[in-house]
């Protein structure tokens, strides 16, 4: 029996709001609508109290010492921008060098590009074949001008989990601030900003079953005290680091989402991880040349990024249109360039064109996984029957030895 369609397997893009989260949020739209900055009446006090409870819950999930280290933003893109631009601006007299990696999210990379235009020097570290950053490479890249290292907790495309504790150790030893974009990893893998020596961390609610439009930046207060210049000026909210009236319903939902994860994340990660393993096993049992992109060992439990050789990713997505997934294929992007993350791993462009990202999460079931696996196997077989590359490979022709330049556009 087919499960209810369409099936959502794109949890890296966004997640549905958990019904428990929605329930917690609802009163804060209507009867408790106060401005958390209104200090002189009960509407404001109630809102402020709710915000502080949420702040405590978020801080607790990531192991922050005090709730005041959580600065609310509109989302992780803003958090990344605030961390990078805010630190670079505040520390401009001490240095201008930033270290990051080629596989970071565009919110980090594009903020770095802008900082380069404004006089910063940025080192973009290569990653290993499995997508991991070598902490020794971070150490080697640090100079006396380095003010910040920014390495994500887990990658949004390939799910690779970075050695955050090791990189944090290097940065602390060298006296350099360490930012991590923790959007994809938080609530799925271990994140403890104290033991991992993280100084700044970007978070987003909508990736963890909370609402869109609310995020946070963890900003360490002690040992070391992190200073940054705001990028939004105004009423001086959030310790002056981010002005603007607080999104109280969003913050309440964010806090509720974190409280749920604090209680449930280990069990949920184990369950989702076993669904992912089941999906991969089924695909590999029925199809040849299924290549897993990125590390299998250091990986988000819900992530499966695979290339089905000789089949173009967008064509496969079209064939499984009742299943919501993503592809690293150029054809799914406006730029016609295949995924820069896959290319940074050294994966050939043809395999990058053939990649599909399955993102499993809280509401997926075993039944869905089995149905999707059967569908994908069937469609990959059909598309391979239609693929001249598969035919050539089966005839023993080494596709790498073919001179395609005669034909290429």
């Amino acid at each position, binding site marked *: 029996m087919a499960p209810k369609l369409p099936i959502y397997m794109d949890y890296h893009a966004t997640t549905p709001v958990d019904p428990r989260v929605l329930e917690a949020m609802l009163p804060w739209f209507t009867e408790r609508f106060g401005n958390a900055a209104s200090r002189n009446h009960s509407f404001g006090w109630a809102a402020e109290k709710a915000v502080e409870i949420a702040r405590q819950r978020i801080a607790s999930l990531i192991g922050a010492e005090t709730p005041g280290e959580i600065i609310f933003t509109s989302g992780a893109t803003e958090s990344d921008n605030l961390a990078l631009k805010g630190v670079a601006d505040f520390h401009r007299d001490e240095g201008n060098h930033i270290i990051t990696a080629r596989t970071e999210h565009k919110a980090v990379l594009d903020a770095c590009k802008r900082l380069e235009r404004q006089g910063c020097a940025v080192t973009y570290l290569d990653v290993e074949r499995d997508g991991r950053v070598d902490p020794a490479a971070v150490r080697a890249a640090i100079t006396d001008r380095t003010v910040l290292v920014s390495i994500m907790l887990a990658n949004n495309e390939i799910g690779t989990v970075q050695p955050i504790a090791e990189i944090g150790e290097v940065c602390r030893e060298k006296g350099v601030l360490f930012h991590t974009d923790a959007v994809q990893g938080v609530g799925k893998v271990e994140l403890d900003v104290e033991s991992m020596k993280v100084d700044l961390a970007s978070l987003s609610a909508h990736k963890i079953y909370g609402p869109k439009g609310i995020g946070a930046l963890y900003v360490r207060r002690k040992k070391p005290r992190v200073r940054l210049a705001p990028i939004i000026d105004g009423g001086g909210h959030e310790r002056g680091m981010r002005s603007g009236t607080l999104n109280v319903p969003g913050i309440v939902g964010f806090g509720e989402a974190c409280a749920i994860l604090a209680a449930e994340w280990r069990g949920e990660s184990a369950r989702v991880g076993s669904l992912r393993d089941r999906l991969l096993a089924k695909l590999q049992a029925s199809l040849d040349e299924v290549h897993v992109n990125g590390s299998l060992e250091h990986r988000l439990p819900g992530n499966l990024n695979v290339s089905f050789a000789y089949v173009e990713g967008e064509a496969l997505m079209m064939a499984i249109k009742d299943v919501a997934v993503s592809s690293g294929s150029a054809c799914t992007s406006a730029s016609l360039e295949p995924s820069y993350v896959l290319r940074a791993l050294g994966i050939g462009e043809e395999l990058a064109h053939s990649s599909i990202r399955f993102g499993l999460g809280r509401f997926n079931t075993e039944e869905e996984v089995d149905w999707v696996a059967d569908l994908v196997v069937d469609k990959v077989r059909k598309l391979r029957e*239609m693929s001249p590359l598969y035919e050539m490979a089966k005839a023993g022709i080494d596709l790498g030895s073919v001179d395609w330049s005669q034909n290429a556009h």
Partner: protein
Amino acid sequence: MAYSNKVIDHYENPRNVGSLDKDDPNVGTGLVGAPACGDVMKLQLKIGDDGIIEDAKFKTFGCGSAIASSSLITEWVKGKTVDEAMTIKNSEIVEELSLPPVKIHCSVLAEDAIKAAIADFRKKQAARAATGQAADARQPRAATGK
């Protein structure tokens, strides 16, 4: 990417998928595109001694538009003479399938595939004529590629 109904129809029910014997002197094979670009089309035409395209088969690695473009041209070329097939323009494919600008390269590739298959056929025929086997009076003019 929102596709036109015609693209979806050709993608879901592709016409003339398959292969012809590439060693048959009456079969021209065109292989265009590159795996690194995400598109490879193989078009094969079986051309009668009267210069009429009797059969067409394709295999394509590429997105939905690339598959639909190849499927469409196999329908279009059947029954045409090689000279008529040579006049098919990519803009006609774009129009028929309502391809968006970002997919125009798929139609260019399909036009190239027709030209490459015919060039291959003409090369075979010229080689055959040169070696004196089964010389054919109605053979198209000597091919020099596209």
